[in-house]
């Protein structure tokens, strides 16, 4: 019974922890402009993140080595250094977006100026990183994030024409009003949002934090293979809500209040309140994960002591880098930059940085010195190779598409 509860808890946290500000914003923007015609990208992205998150979790559980240690070991100091610079910058951008997201959601709930919420949000994030036990942190944020299911409830309450939604999704084709390049630009953005590299940094390091061993592999697999796809369904629900309400009204999403407009319309104040709590929890959880990831990547590349399971004084440089990352995020937000725009940038640049992280994971998952009998099977390797090609194409196409479409405008 206790074991079953553990499995259920793991799955629920994976669902609630899947959606972050990147998924929220990108899905709503895409839904309001393209209907469900890009839903296939979410599907491709979810399969990809399942594949590589479970692979990095397996490597960490079996060998005790987290993802960026492997990146450093396989790519050497130069290429891994380039990856570190890129990943750290994108991670900082994502952290900025998440902290901004918390502030925007609290602003919606309280009508207190977001800039007043930013330092409060960042301080709260730091206090949790400083003080709270790793599994408590992960479970509370994940379970509260489940409240985002309000988007799915709203979709049913809206009573959409389901046939029309399916027609938008299959066969996928860009709406007549949008340029093909813009369609592909958002396809790359959506893919980057689903496969953001910080998720594998966090997932593999979390496995080390929680002291996983080869015995926990089955649980790891179930969490990922059940939790992430259900989390992906939440993403689709967000896009579908936007497609039903915002697309016909010609509203292009540029603020959080527009993202939650369909929820307010369908379920009134009560459902809106539920979803706002969900957004606060989801962005707060993701802010924790990205702040930790900035510490993980730096510490693992340079061989520093790291981990929330140690006393902060026993992982001093790791904790100091997280503090610096949070201060930088607050500094960026205080320039009045729009967190929604920061988010849109961060998901596209995520797509650019993907290959340098995913190649070493795939290599090490096949290395018997690390993995013993737990090396990749043929199916996983075949899928992994296919995804490497997809990831490389997306990475190469991202910047040219961004320039050609004026960042999707």
């Amino acid at each position, binding site marked *: 019974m206790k074991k079953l509860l553990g499995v259920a808890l793991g799955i629920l946290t994976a669902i609630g922890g899947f959606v972050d500000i990147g998924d929220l914003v990108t899905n709503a923007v895409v839904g309001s402009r393209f209907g469900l015609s890009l839903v296939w990208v979410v599907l491709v992205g979810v399969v990809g993140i399942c594949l590589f998150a479970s692979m990095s979790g397996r490597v960490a559980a079996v060998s005790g080595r987290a993802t960026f240690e492997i990146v450093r070991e396989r790519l050497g100091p130069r290429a891994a250094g380039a990856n570190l610079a890129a990943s750290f910058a994108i991670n900082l951008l994502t952290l900025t977006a998440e902290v901004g997201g918390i502030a925007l959601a609290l602003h919606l709930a309280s009508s207190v100026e977001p800039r007043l919420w930013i330092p409060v949000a960042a301080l709260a994030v730091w206090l949790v990183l400083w003080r709270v*036990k790793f599994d408590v942190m992960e479970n509370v944020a994940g379970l509260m994030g489940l409240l985002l299911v309000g988007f799915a409830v709203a979709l049913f309450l809206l009573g959409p024409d389901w046939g029309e939604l399916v027609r938008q999704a299959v066969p996928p084709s860009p709406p007549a009003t949008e340029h093909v390049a813009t369609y592909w630009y958002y396809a790359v953005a959506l893919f980057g949002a689903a496969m953001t590299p910080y998720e594998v940094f966090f997932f593999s390091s979390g496995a080390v934090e929680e002291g996983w061993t080869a015995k926990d592999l089955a649980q790891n697999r179930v969490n990922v293979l059940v939790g992430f796809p259900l989390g992906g369904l939440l993403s689709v629900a967000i896009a579908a809500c936007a497609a039903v309400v915002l697309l016909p009204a010609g509203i292009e999403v540029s603020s959080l209040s527009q993202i939650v407009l369909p929820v307010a319309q369908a379920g009134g104040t009560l459902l809106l309140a539920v979803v706002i709590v969900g957004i606060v929890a989801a962005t707060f959880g993701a802010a924790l994960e990205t702040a930790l990831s900035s510490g993980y990547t730096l510490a693992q590349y340079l061989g520093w002591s790291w981990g929330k399971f140690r006393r902060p004084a026993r992982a001093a440089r790791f904790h100091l880098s997280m503090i610096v990352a949070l201060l930088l995020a607050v500094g960026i937000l205080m320039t009045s930059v729009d967190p929604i725009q920061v988010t849109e940038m961060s998901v596209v640049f995520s797509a650019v940085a993907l290959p340098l992280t995913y190649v070493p994971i795939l290599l090490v998952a096949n290395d018997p010195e690390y993995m013993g009998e737990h090396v990749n099977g043929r199916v996983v390797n075949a899928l992994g190779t296919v995804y490497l090609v997809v990831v490389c194409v997306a990475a190469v196409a991202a910047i040219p598409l961004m320039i050609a479409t004026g960042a999707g405008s």
Partner: protein
Amino acid sequence: MSDERHEREVVGTRVVDARLHLLSRQVLDVDGEPVTTVDDLEVRAPDGGEAVPGEEAWVSAIVGWPVLVTRVLGGHPPRARRAEVAWSDVGHVGTAVELTVTADTLDVGWTERWVRDHVVGRIPGGRHDPEAGS
């Protein structure tokens, strides 16, 4: 040792490829706490003098992070600024290099100790054990 050269060395009966099995690996202290990465290796003659090409040479030390900058950008750091772990402190070479001493006794740990003593240790709760609950 230059980045491009492969040094092979026998540990027990196992052949260890320096590039593949040593460089850029994590170094853990006797308690499993990360100390540094293997950023470079120092090679010396068996009598402790300069390694002479064509004659026998041993790995004498693991060289820590200040050398990383010059390994990426080129050049050599001055000897006084090098942080080393003597090879005699190495207990096991696996997917990580495990030492037989604690991190606090090593020179390479000084930045960690500096940040601990001057910054993180001074913030309230900095020495609190998170696993013990709040």
